[in-house]
C-alpha cells in the first residue's frame, strides 16, 4: 500500500508496535518493559525531528502547498471517509512537542508501580491517539483519534492516580466526553454541508475549499465544535475537570495530559471550528473572546490562593490555555503564531512542572505548600528545576513563555477594534498575577526554613528524573532563545485561514 511510503503513518504505527511489544512483555520483566517503552519514545522523537527536517526541506524547495506529505486512502467508502494524512507547520511542531513530552513522560514514570506494563500500555494508547489526531486531516479520523486519546485517561488516573482518584477520573472522562458529544454533532453537521455538488467529504482541506456551509448552519455548528474542543482546552466555564483531574493523575499522565492533550483542544478549535466556519467565527468571536479572556485572568487569580501544588498548576494551565484560545480568536497571523508558540511553551513548561511536582510529591508525600519549605536546601536540582519552570511560566526572556506571550500580546494589539484591545490589555495584566502566584509558590516551597524535619533526609533527583526534566528544560530554553526558528515553521501555515477570515469581514 502506498500509504506506508508516507512517513506520517509511522507516527501511529510506532506507538501501536510499542503497544504490541509491551503486550508481549511479562508483567514481571520490568527491564523489558522499560526497554520497549524507551525505544518507542526515542524512535518517535527521531521521527519527529526528521519530520521537521523534511518540512523545512519541502518549504525550502518552494513547496507552498497548504499541507505537505499528503496521502489519502479510502476507508469508509459509503461516507467518503478517507485516511487522509497531511501536515502543515502547526501540526509539525505539535508532533515535535508530543514526541518530546512522551519521551520525558516515559522517564518520569520510570519507577511506576504497580502494574508498570498496563500503565505503559494505556500510556501508549493515549499517545497513539494524540499523534493520530495531529497527522490526520479527515474529520472522522481526527475525531476517532481524539477519543482514543481521551479514554485511557480514565484508567490511568483511576488505577495509578492519588487522592480522590475515582471521582476525578470519572469527572474528567464524563466532562471531556460531554465535550466530544457536542463535537460529534458539529462534525456530522459539517459533513452534511461539506459540499454543494453532493460530493460530501470529511476532508478538512476540501471542506475549506468548498466553503459550502450555509451561514445559518455555521452559527450553530461553530459553537458546537468550538465548545467541544474548548472543553479540552480548559475554556471557562468548562475547565473544572482540570484541577481535580490533574490533582489526582499520576505524574506522567499529568504531563501528557496538560502537555499534549489540552493542545488538541486549541489545535482543533483552530483547524476545524475556525478554519471551516470563518463566517460564524467572525460573528461569534466576541462570545468566546470574552470567555477565554475571562479564563486567562480568572485562572490566574484562582491560582493565587491554592495551596495544593497541582491545583496551582491546573489553574495556571487554565490561564495559559485560555491565552491560546484567546490568541487564536484574534484572527491575525501574529497572534495565531503566538498561540501555537504558547501551546509549545505551555506544553513543555507544564509538563516540567508536573514532573517536578510528581517527584517532590513522591518524596514528601504531600503537595500542600504549607507543609513544605526550604526544599531548595534539601533537593537543589529539583529546586532549580522548579525555579526555571516558574520563571518560564511567568515569562522570563530566554525561556519559552516570554516569547509566546509577547507574540500573542503584540499580535492581539494589532486589532484596531476597541473591544479586542481592552481584552488584550486585561489579558496582559495576567503577567503580573502570574508572577504573584509563581513567586508565592517558589517562596513557600523552595525558600524559607525547612518546615518538616523529616524532609531533611530526602534525596535529590535520580538519573532518570534528571534526564526527564533536563529534556524539558532544554526544550523550554531552546524555544526561548531561538524563537524565530519556530515562528518560521509556524507562521505561513496560518495564511490560508487568515485569508478565509479576511474574506468574511
Amino acid at each position, binding site marked *: 500500500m502506498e500509504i506506508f511510503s508516507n512517513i506520517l503513518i509511522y507516527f501511529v504505527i510506532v506507538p501501536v508496535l510499542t503497544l504490541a511489544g509491551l503486550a508481549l512483555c511479562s508483567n514481571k520483566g520490568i527491564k523489558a518493559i522499560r526497554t520497549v517503552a524507551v525505544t518507542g519514545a526515542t524512535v518517535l522523537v527521531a521521527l519527529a525531528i526528521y519530520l521537521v527536517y523534511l518540512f523545512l526541506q519541502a518549504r525550502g524547495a518552494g513547496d507552498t502547498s497548504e499541507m505537505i506529505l499528503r496521502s489519502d486512502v479510502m*476507508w*469508509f*467508502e*459509503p*461516507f467518503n*471517509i478517507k485516511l487522509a494524512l497531511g501536515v502543515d507547520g502547526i501540526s509539525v511542531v505539535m508532533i515535535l512537542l508530543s514526541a518530546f513530552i512522551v519521551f520525558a513522560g516515559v522517564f518520569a514514570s520510570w519507577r511506576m508501580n504497580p502494574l508498570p506494563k498496563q500503565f505503559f500500555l494505556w500510556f501508549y494508547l493515549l499517545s497513539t491517539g494524540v499523534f493520530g489526531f495531529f497527522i490526520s486531516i479527515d474529520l*472522522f479520523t481526527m475525531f*476517532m*483519534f481524539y*477519543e*482514543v486519546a481521551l*479514554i485511557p485517561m*480514565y*484508567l490511568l488516573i*483511576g*488505577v495509578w492516580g492519588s487522592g480522590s*482518584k*475515582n471521582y476525578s*477520573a*470519572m469527572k474528567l*472522562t*464524563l466532562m471531556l*466526553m*460531554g465535550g466530544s*458529544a*457536542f463535537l*460529534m*454533532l458539529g462534525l*456530522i*453537521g459539517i*459533513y*452534511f454541508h461539506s459540499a454543494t455538488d453532493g460530493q460530501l467529504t470529511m476532508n478538512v482541506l476540501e471542506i475549506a475549499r468548498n466553503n459550502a456551509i450555509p451561514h445559518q448552519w455555521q452559527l450553530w455548528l461553530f459553537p458546537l465544535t468550538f465548545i467541544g474542543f474548548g472543553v479540552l482546552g480548559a475554556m471557562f466555564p468548562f475547565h473544572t475537570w482540570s484541577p481535580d483531574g490533574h490533582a489526582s493523575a499520576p505524574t506522567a499522565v499529568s504531563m501528557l495530559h496538560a502537555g499534549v492533550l489540552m493542545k488538541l483542544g486549541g489545535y482543533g478549535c483552530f483547524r476545524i471550528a475556525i478554519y471551516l466556519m470563518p463566517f460564524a467565527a467572525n460573528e461569534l468571536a466576541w462570545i468566546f473572546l470574552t470567555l477565554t479572556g475571562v479564563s486567562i485572568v480568572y485562572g490566574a487569580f484562582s491560582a493565587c490562593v491554592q495551596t495544593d501544588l497541582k491545583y496551582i498548576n491546573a489553574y495556571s494551565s487554565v490561564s495559559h490555555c485560555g491565552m491560546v484560545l484567546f490568541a487564536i480568536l484574534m484572527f491575525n497571523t501574529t497572534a495565531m503564531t503566538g498561540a501555537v508558540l504558547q501551546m509549545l511553551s505551555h506544553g513543555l513548561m507544564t509538563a516540567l512542572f508536573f514532573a517536578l511536582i510528581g517527584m517532590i510529591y513522591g518524596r514528601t508525600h504531600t503537595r500542600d505548600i504549607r507543609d513544605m519549605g526550604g526544599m531548595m536546601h534539601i533537593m537543589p536540582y529539583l529546586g532549580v528545576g522548579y525555579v526555571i519552570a516558574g520563571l518560564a511560566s511567568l515569562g522570563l526572556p530566554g525561556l519559552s513563555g516570554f516569547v509566546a506571550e509577547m507574540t500573542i500580546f503584540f499580535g492581539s494589539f494589532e486589532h484596531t477594534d476597541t473591544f479586542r484591545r481592552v481584552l488584550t490589555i486585561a489579558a496582559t495584566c495576567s503577567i503580573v498575577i502570574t508572577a504573584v502566584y509563581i513567586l508565592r509558590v517558589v517562596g513557600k516551597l523552595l525558600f524559607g526554613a525547612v518546615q518538616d524535619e523529616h524532609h531533611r533526609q530526602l534525596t535529590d533527583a535520580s538519573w532518570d528524573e534528571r534526564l526527564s526534566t533536563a529534556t524539558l528544560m532544554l526544550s523550554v530554553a531552546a524555544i526561548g532563545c531561538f524563537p524565530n526558528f519556530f515562528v518560521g515553521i509556524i507562521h505561513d501555515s496560518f495564511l490560508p485561514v487568515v485569508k478565509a477570515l479576511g474574506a468574511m469581514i
Partner: protein
Amino acid sequence: MDYSQFLYMPQEIGLLLVFLLVFIYDTFMPARMGKHLPMFATIMTALYTVYSFFPCPDSWGVAFGGMFEANAATWVMKNILNVGVLLVMLQSVKWTNDDFVSVRRGEFYELLLLTLFGMFLMISSRHFLLFVIGLETASLPIAALAAFEKRHYESHEAAAKYMFTAVFSSAIFMLGISFVYGLSGSLYFRDIATTILGQKSALLILAVAFVIAGVGYKLSLVPFHQWTADVYQGAPTAVTSYLSVISKGAAAFAFLVILVQVFGSVYAQVWQWMLYAIIILTITIGNLFAMRQRNLKRFLAYSSISQAGYIMLGVIAANQVGMASMIYYVLVYIFSNLAAFGVIAVIERATGKVTIDDYNGLFRTNPWLAFTMMLAMFSLGGIPPFAGFFSKFFIFVGACQTGSVAIYVLVFIALVNTIISLYYYLLVVKAMFLRQDDCVVPYIDSHWTEELALTVCVMGIIAVGVASGIYTFISQITASTTVAPMFTMVG
C-alpha cells in the same frame, strides 16, 4: 401449487434440517450419548452458518404470491443472527452439560433453533399472517426457555411475566392488524401501502400505534419495555443473552420493514413523531434505570433498552444509510453484548455471582475475563477504536441524513445520553480495575468453548469497526436493487 417456491427459502430450510437432526439425535440416541448433544447441535449450527454464508442470488425473490421475500438484506440479516446464535450455543455448551439442566438440554437447542426459525419468518414475511406466525414462533418458545432453570424461583416468575405480557401485546398487535385489514382489505404489505397512501384517519393512527406497540414490545422500547429487566434477570444467562441480541436484532429489522414498507407512505403524517417520542423515552429511561443497577444481568437489560433506542435511530431515518447502519449496529451489538454476557455466564456458572460488587478486583484474578468485559463495555459505550464507536457514529449520520433539524435535536439528545451510558459502563470497568476487594472472584479456568466464543466476540469488537469492508459491504447490499425499492414509499 408450485413447490419450487420453497427454493426461495434456502436458509429457513437449512435451519429446519438442523433442527430435525438435533431433534432426532435427542430422541433416538442412547442416554450416554446425550452429553455430546450440545457439541453436536453447535457443530451442526456452525456448518449451517457457514453454508448459509454463501449467497445464492438466484434464490432471491418473492414467493407464495408475495407473502415471503428473500433478498440480499434478509440474507445478511439472517447470517448475522446465525452467527449470534452460534455464539450463544458455544457459550452454553458447558452450562447445558451441568447436572440440573442436562436432562432437558435437548429442548434448549431445539427451542433455540425454532425461535430462530420464527425470526427468519418475521424478517422475510411480506404478509401479516406470515408475520404473526413468525412473531409467535419467535416469542412463545422463549417463555419456555426463560423457565428453563427449574430450580430457581426467579426463572418461573420471569417466564410468567414474559408469557402474560407477550400474549397481551400480541393481542394488541393483532387488534392493530385487524384495523389495518379493515382499512385496506388486504394483509399484503405492498397492497396496504398503496391503499393507505395519503390517508390519515383516526383508525389508521390507532392501528399504527398498536403495531408499533406490538413490535416495540419485542424490541423492549419504552413504554412497552417493562418485562425486559425482570425477564433478563430471572432467565438463565444463555437465554438472556439470546433474548437481548438475537430476538432484538430480528425484531429491529422486521420493524424497519413494516414501518417503511407498510406505513412508509404515512411516515411524516403518522409514525415519525410517535417513533421520535419513543426513541427519546427509550434511551433516557433505559439509561436512568441502568445507572442504579447492581445486578449485572438487570444492568445489561436496561443498557440493552437504551441500545434499542439507538437502533431505532436507524429506523426513524427511514433511508438506505439508516438501514445499513442499523444492520451494522445489530452486528456490532451482537458481538459486544455477547462478550459481556459471555463473561457474566462464565462467572455465574463458576461462582454464581452476578452483582457488580462481586466483580471488584476481577482484573487481578481473571485479567482476560476483565479485559474482555472492558472491551465489551467500551464498545457498548461507543469508545473508539472499538466497533461500537463506528456503529454509533454511522447510525447518527444515517439519522442526520434526513436533514431535518428535529432529527438533529434527537441525535443531540442521544449524544447527551451517551455520556450517562458511558458513566455506568465505566462503573463496571471501575469495579474490575480500580476497586480492590478481599472476597474477590478466584481464578476461573473457563471451558474452551466459552473461550472460543469470547475470543470471537473480542475479535469482532476490535475488527468489525476498523475493517471498513464489512460496513461497506452491508451498505452496498442495502443499496442493491433488491432492497432499494423499499424506500420509494417513504415520504
